[in-house]
């Protein structure tokens, strides 16, 4: 009898380990599988039982529920107040369009047999059977764009690296998911690590690289453990190593663990960090595609970009680009976070509205108070009010609305939020995390905090608001990377969309 209790760290954070232990102790003959999370995080720990009708779910389960679950014969799908019915029919999940996340929460993350039974390795085997140019053409045609936030077409990046001549090339996966409100990289790695490894292997074959590195943040200790185990399994299987699945291609993969620096999510700072140095941003050009890690041609892609590639190779570019809108093709893995009733992973084609995600899937705030603001795209993304909720979530529409899609994180705030404080935090965070290389970011962020403090205190408010906007312009235009260049986005959007919070009066609302 198989019982699934997620080993995802979000599930563990609300007691999944204790639930798994209690079930193991009390239920005879139970085989407990620590799957990833299906992404309905408010239902975690969500326990699933494999019955002859498929999987039946219960959640959120706590240790004190186990006795009553046993009494209700949950092992055979018995009725219980926590019963959620058949897992595949839970509306919140069934209505999604899972491509990148299609196996997450379903398979045992460390079972290669499970992985292959659910379509794993099909893309890689096809990549081995065709030539490099054909792989890159398929990826280019699919329209997959960089999921880290910049949205750069993956195929074009790969083509540049493939065309570079060098004795050594690298594939670097950026898993430094430092943006607050984002957790899809972590959940993918914890729930389906072989997909990432497969995507990186395909990239290596496409561009002629033999060494891969995953730069994974230290704040994700559970993901580090699971990915390392998956890499070891792939090695033992003859997937990684000197001959990929018996072919003439070689590929090795290592994890490098971050050390608590946000700016190392910027690709060139990440390269410096992997080289063991301070995470100081490099000027571009040279592009990392030509002179990247240790000066060699390097593909740098986000976890979700690389993890989408196996599906593109398995099902073809046409199937992928049939989804989405305009130049934002395929699906986006949205992450619903903050003060939200039903938070988690919502994978849908680009073009769904903010309203559908936040109120439709999210069900409003956890506190039950009205939503006042959402921040989309991480700490460098814009703050919007509910008047912008009909905006389509795709790269171009978000840009037109004065924001950005970023890595797809959406943080919800209720009406207790003070947007002047949020703007101040954006500047303070930039001051804390700036690498220090360029002046607009290093000094501008500290001046930004001081200026917002004066506005909050009501000192020469109009003058200081003008000064702050001027500072934002300098940071946007003059910073070397997105850290300093985009910190003005949350600040300016808060000032524009919530001017009532920047009047310097305490009882402004």
């Amino acid at each position, binding site marked *: 009898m198989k019982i699934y209790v997620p080993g995802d*760290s*979000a599930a*563990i*954070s*609300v007691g999944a380990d204790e639930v798994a232990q209690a079930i193991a102790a009390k239920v005879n003959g139970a085989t407990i599988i620590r799957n990833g999370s299906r992404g309905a*995080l*408010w239902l*975690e720990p969500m326990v699933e039982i494999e019955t002859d009708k498929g999987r039946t779910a219960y959640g959120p389960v706590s240790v004190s529920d186990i006795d009553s679950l046993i009494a209700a014969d949950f092992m055979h799908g018995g009725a219980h107040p926590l019963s959620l019915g058949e897992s595949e029919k839970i509306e919140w999940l069934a209505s999604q369009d899972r491509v990148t996340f299609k196996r997450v929460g379903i398979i045992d993350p460390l079972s290669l047999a499970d992985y292959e039974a659910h379509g794993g390795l099909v893309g890689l085997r096809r990549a081995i059977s065709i030539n490099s140019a054909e792989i890159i053409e398929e990826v280019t045609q699919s329209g997959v764009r960089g999921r880290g936030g910049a949205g750069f077409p993956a195929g074009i990046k790969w083509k540049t690296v493939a065309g570079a001549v060098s004795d050594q090339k690298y594939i670097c996966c950026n898993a430094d*998911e*430092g*943006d*607050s*409100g*984002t*957790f899809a*990289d*972590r*959940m993918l790695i914890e729930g389906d690590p072989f997909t990432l490894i497969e995507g990186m292997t395909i990239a290596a074959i496409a561009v002629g690289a033999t060494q891969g590195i995953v730069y994974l943040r*230290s*704040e*994700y*200790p*559970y*993901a580090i453990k699971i990915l390392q185990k998956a890499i070891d399994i792939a090695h033992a299987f003859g997937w990684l190593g000197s001959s990929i699945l018996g072919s003439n291609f070689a590929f090795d993969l290592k994890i*490098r*663990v*971050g*050390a*608590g*620096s*946000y700016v190392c999510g910027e690709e060139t700072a990440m390269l410096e*960090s*992997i*080289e*063991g*140095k*301070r*995470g100081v941003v490099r000027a571009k050009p040279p592009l990392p595609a030509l002179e990247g890690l*240790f000066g060699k041609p390097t593909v740098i892609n986000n976890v979700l970009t690389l993890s989408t590639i196996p599906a593109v190779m398995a099902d073809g570019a046409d199937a992928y680009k049939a989804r989405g809108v305009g130049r934002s093709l395929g699906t986006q893995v949205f*992450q*619903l*976070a*903050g*003060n*939200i009733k039903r*938070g*988690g992973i919502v994978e849908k084609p680009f073009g769904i509205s903010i309203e559908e995600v936040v109120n439709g899937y999210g069900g409003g705030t*956890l*506190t039950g108070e009205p939503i006042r603001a959402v*921040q989309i795209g991480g*700490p460098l993304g814009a703050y919007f009010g509910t008047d912008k909720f009909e905006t389509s979530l795709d790269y171009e529409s978000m840009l037109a609305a004065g924001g950005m899609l970023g890595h797809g*994180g959406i*943080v*919800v*705030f209720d009406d207790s*939020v003070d947007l002047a404080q*949020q703007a101040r*935090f954006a500047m303070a*965070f930039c001051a804390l*995390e700036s690498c220090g290389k360029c002046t607009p970011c290093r000094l501008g962020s500290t001046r930004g905090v001081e200026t917002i403090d004066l506005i909050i205190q009501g000192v020469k408010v109009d003058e200081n608001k003008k000064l702050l906007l001027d500072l934002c312009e300098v940071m946007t235009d003059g910073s070397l990377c997105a850290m300093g260049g985009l910190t003005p986005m949350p600040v300016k959007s808060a000032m524009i969309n919530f001017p009532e919070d920047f009047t310097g009066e305490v009882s402004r609302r």
Partner: protein
Amino acid sequence: MKYSAWSQEAALDVLATLREEKGAVLMALQALQKEFGYVHQEDVALVANFFNNSRADVHGVLTFYHDLLTEPPTENQISVCVAEACQAVGSRKLEKDLKAKFGKEVHDGYCFGNCALGPSAMVNGAILGRASVDSIAKARV
């Protein structure tokens, strides 16, 4: 958490495991901290020597990364997320209350990727969701 007592020989043993690594300075400092709980002041020269870097370079790396500590850690290490998603569910107050109660044990964290179940905290490496002063107190040793 339990750490080994620092000695030069023990530190060199740690470094020896990284001899073959390319660009190993940051890894070396992380490995030393994992073994001894922090980076000892004499480690800077040891690492510089071992990997043929300048002491200034190693010092630069040591002081850049928030994770790296130069003092022995407190017995309990509490890291509370103070980034936006956790702010939206009250982490600013939680942080204040925790610092009042547990003082130097408490550090600001910036996102543990548990943003739908905040406020989040890490207590001695274990993650806590929907964290409160009580649940964090219980997770301490």
